[in-house]
């Protein structure tokens, strides 16, 4: 195992860099730029039981700290992913993926997770209870700990794969949420999904996104996410994957210092498709500068 390797609930990644769900498709698009096997793992586009066509255009806006999106979980559905996408993916990608699952009912989460749980390529299940861009589902599971716990319990019954839950900053009491998820059997946490926000068009004064609001991501949210990881890490005993605003190798070090065992990178994959490669090359230099041998020893350094 190299100096960058980390372990998530028994799943060893040769590096902690995980492209975040929705910013790496199903792995094929970044392959135009680099060998996608360079990533530690990646999280597939949020997948639901049935195909979804998502929100109308515009789905994207920009701001001084990154971007907003309201894609609305467009995806071909779990069956098509397993039948068509995974076989094609296995030909070019030889590591595991995080199966990012979204749903509109406890049953939907459980069904999707059960199906993904049988797939060799799936390293762990990432329950997205936090998408701000769909109505009636997604995020509502992310704001109420009881509902969220019921999702975890249902999913744990149907799969042996580690189950990680991706939380939303819109949750009014994130600490209680995380502890409840741990108690319900979650194997790990992903902190965090996007922040609710919006932009208005200069000329018309109306919302830019067809959906009105969208999810804010990118460097602008980094210190907010970092604070949540720092707050929650000492209070739970399951691993945290940090996610939000990471755009450099220094950010990776900082997020792991706050308690993250691995790091998801989203917006930066769009800004610069080669960012993961660049960060991966810089990490060993930073480790040397810090006099630290193994990256995994950085996790939770703030508390030592």
């Amino acid at each position: 195992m190299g100096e960058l390797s980390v372990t998530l609930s028994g799943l060893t990644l040769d590096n902690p860099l995980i492209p975040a769900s929705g910013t790496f498709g199903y792995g094929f698009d970044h392959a135009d730029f680099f060998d996608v096997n360079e990533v530690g793992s990646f999280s597939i586009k949020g997948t639901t039981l049935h195909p979804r066509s998502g929100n109308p255009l515009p789905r994207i806006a920009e701001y001084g700290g990154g971007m907003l999106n309201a894609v609305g979980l467009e995806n071909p559905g779990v069956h098509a992913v397993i039948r068509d996408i995974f076989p094609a993916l296995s030909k070019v990608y030889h590591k595991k993926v995080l199966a990012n699952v979204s749903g509109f009912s406890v049953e939907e989460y459980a069904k999707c997770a059960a199906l993904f749980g049988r797939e060799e390529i799936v390293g762990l299940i990432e329950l997205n209870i936090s998408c701000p861009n769909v109505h009636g589902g997604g995020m509502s599971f992310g704001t109420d700990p009881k509902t969220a716990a019921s999702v975890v319990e249902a999913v744990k019954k149907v799969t042996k794969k580690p189950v990680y839950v991706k939380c939303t900053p819109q949750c009014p009491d994130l600490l209680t949420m995380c502890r409840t998820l741990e108690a319900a059997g979650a194997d790990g946490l992903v902190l965090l999904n996007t922040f609710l926000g919006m932009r208005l068009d200069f000329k018309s004064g109306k919302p830019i996104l067809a959906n009105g609001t969208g999810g804010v991501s990118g460097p602008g949210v980094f210190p907010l996410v970092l604070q949540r990881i720092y707050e929650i890490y000492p209070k739970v005993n399951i691993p945290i994957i940090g996610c939000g605003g990471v755009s450099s190798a220094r950010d990776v070090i900082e997020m792991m210092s706050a308690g993250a065992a691995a790091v998801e990178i989203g917006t930066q994959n769009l800004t610069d498709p080669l960012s993961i490669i660049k960060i991966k090359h810089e990490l060993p230099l930073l480790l040397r500068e810090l006099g630290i041998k193994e990256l995994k020893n950085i996790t939770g350094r703030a508390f030592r």
Partner: protein
Amino acid sequence: MTGEYTCVIRKHELTAPDTYTLLLEPEQEIPFRPGQFIDLAVPGFSLRRPLSVTDCEGGTIRLTYQLTGPGTRALSEYSGETLNILAPLGNGFLLPERGEKLLLLGGGIGTAPLIFLAREALKRGCQLTAVFGFRSPDRTLFQKELAGLDIKTFLCYDSEGENVVSVLKKEGLAGIPFAACGPIAMLWAVDEVTQAPGQFSLECRMGCGFGACMGCSVKMRSGMRRICKDGPVFDRKEVLWESFR
């Protein structure tokens, strides 16, 4: 090969009101087809700016862009020596067969990718007619350039009560295979008045420009399609205009 390239700025100047010409020379030659685009990193902005290739000669990429908002404004004021791009992106226009007729329909800055298409089609000995519409005569783009090419050209102006669609009808061009780029309203109207086969180059706000984020995915006749990777050029039979309202 699709990739990230650092380009030296060879020229960067105002060539029409609010419109800049930018010549970029990448480290290595990038093969482009007409209708493809690049995604340009504007320093200080998170998202890249997609720009169609106006022409590509001897490895130098010509871009033509209009001041639209803060990003293009910052680009126009950029004083560095290099710029970073992703290229080539998207599928270009299907080129006409040798000797075929082709009608080029362009509105405003949408005329830019048609210049590249025109040059390639001329190389194939095609017979070209162009109808380019602008807001007013002072905002005409590529007038000299068109004059130097063997293209039958109609220029029309909103300020004079004419536009691409009205000229199309008046001149009886609605039966010629076409390639069109411009504002959605114009394209939609073109679709309604023409009968021939045709292609539309579309645009929308993009997240990545290379297919990864679904930020540009839109309902087309054959299903959801990403404008960046499955387009930006689409066959007229594919486009559902309601998706662009």
